């Protein structure tokens, strides 16, 4: 132990991130997030005003994955969304395989 007071880690799903906080966590401009919410890639295309948007763990992981695919492969946002959707589906199926006692690699 370091002797300092322990720092409490807060699960994102309890606090959730605002638009600016998500943009900061992904090191992008808020406009990048706004565009992807408006096209339905993030937050399921909510109709709410940006001030009311709240992002959880799943959204943060998804946003960072989108960003990586867009940057690594010069992909447009729709192609990146498709790749991330498929990746999430593969992860979900692998988790279910493991839960069912079937090994997945």
């Amino acid at each position, binding site marked *: 132990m*370091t002797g*300092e007071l322990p720092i409490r880690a807060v699960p994102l799903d309890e606090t959730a991130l605002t638009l600016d906080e998500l943009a*900061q966590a992904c090191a992008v401009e808020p406009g990048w997030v706004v565009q992807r919410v408006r096209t339905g890639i993030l937050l399921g295309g909510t109709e709410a005003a940006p001030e009311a948007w709240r992002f959880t763990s799943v959204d943060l992981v998804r946003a960072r994955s989108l960003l990586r695919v867009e940057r690594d492969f010069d992909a447009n946002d729709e192609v990146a969304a498709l790749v991330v959707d498929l990746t999430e589906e593969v*992860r979900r199926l692998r988790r279910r395989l493991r839960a069912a*006692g079937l090994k997945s690699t």
Partner: protein
Amino acid sequence: MEYKDYYAVLGVPKTADADAIKKAYRKLVRKYHPDVSKEADADVRTKELNEAYGVLGDAEKRAAYDELGSAQYRQPEGGGFRPPPDWGSGFESADGGADSDFFKDLFAHVGGGRRHGFAMRGDDTHAVIEIALADAYHGASRTIGLRVPQADEHGRVVTRERTLDVTIPKGVTEGQQLRLAGQGQPGSGGAAAGDLYLEIRFAEDRRYRVEGRDVYQTVPVAPWEAALGAGIEVATPSGRVSVTVPPDSQGGRKLRLKGRGIPGTAAAPAGDLYLLLEIALPPANTPQAKALYEQMARDLKFDPRRGL
């Protein structure tokens, strides 16, 4: 400082054009992508690739890197490497793959230098923390080590080792992000530090399988326990519990223990624990055991393949 050969990381010659570098990077980043790679060091390789491409994929940074790689700045003894004092001015600060000391020492200070005189919040940082499933049930304390870039008296950024004592609340799940406010990169000009995000991963545990907050556990039972029903004791992640095995249970039967999965939080209810019965056969390795099996074969008139 040890020199890192980014061309070797990407497997391209120093004469490679921008297109060849991009192609090499994409090919390798796909190969080592954590969701598809079967390589053991995929994480490390991906970081190296991102770091190398962050430099070679940017014409300006690449030019500066090539200049640094020239003999002029190599130190004769030990193959060390010393960048010129004004190196890097005019370049953007590092993004992605910035876990390497080499990368940080070369690039990270540049952004800080350009921001001189402005108050700017520190960047958020991301890391992964591995915990045991039991920690998700009870909460945990962890001491984690971080490498943090910090400006020295000459305004250059050096990396500093830092440890943090972190309390992880109970009820966390795989993939969940924990936020440690103010524990990211320091701000400049008196502005606030960024936040640190920790992604939860569960250490491999052959006893348990987890899906969300639900936990699955295989429980061996004797044939007579499955056939006649029995009260058994099972060690679960939340401690020992008494469970009733219903009579006529077959292998694969699922017993649900409501609320005994990963504990709930303000945002989500507790998961369930599923016990999957697995019928363990006693070996027929004594005359008495053999006789019992023979008696069953004679008396039970049991055909397990009926209906096939």
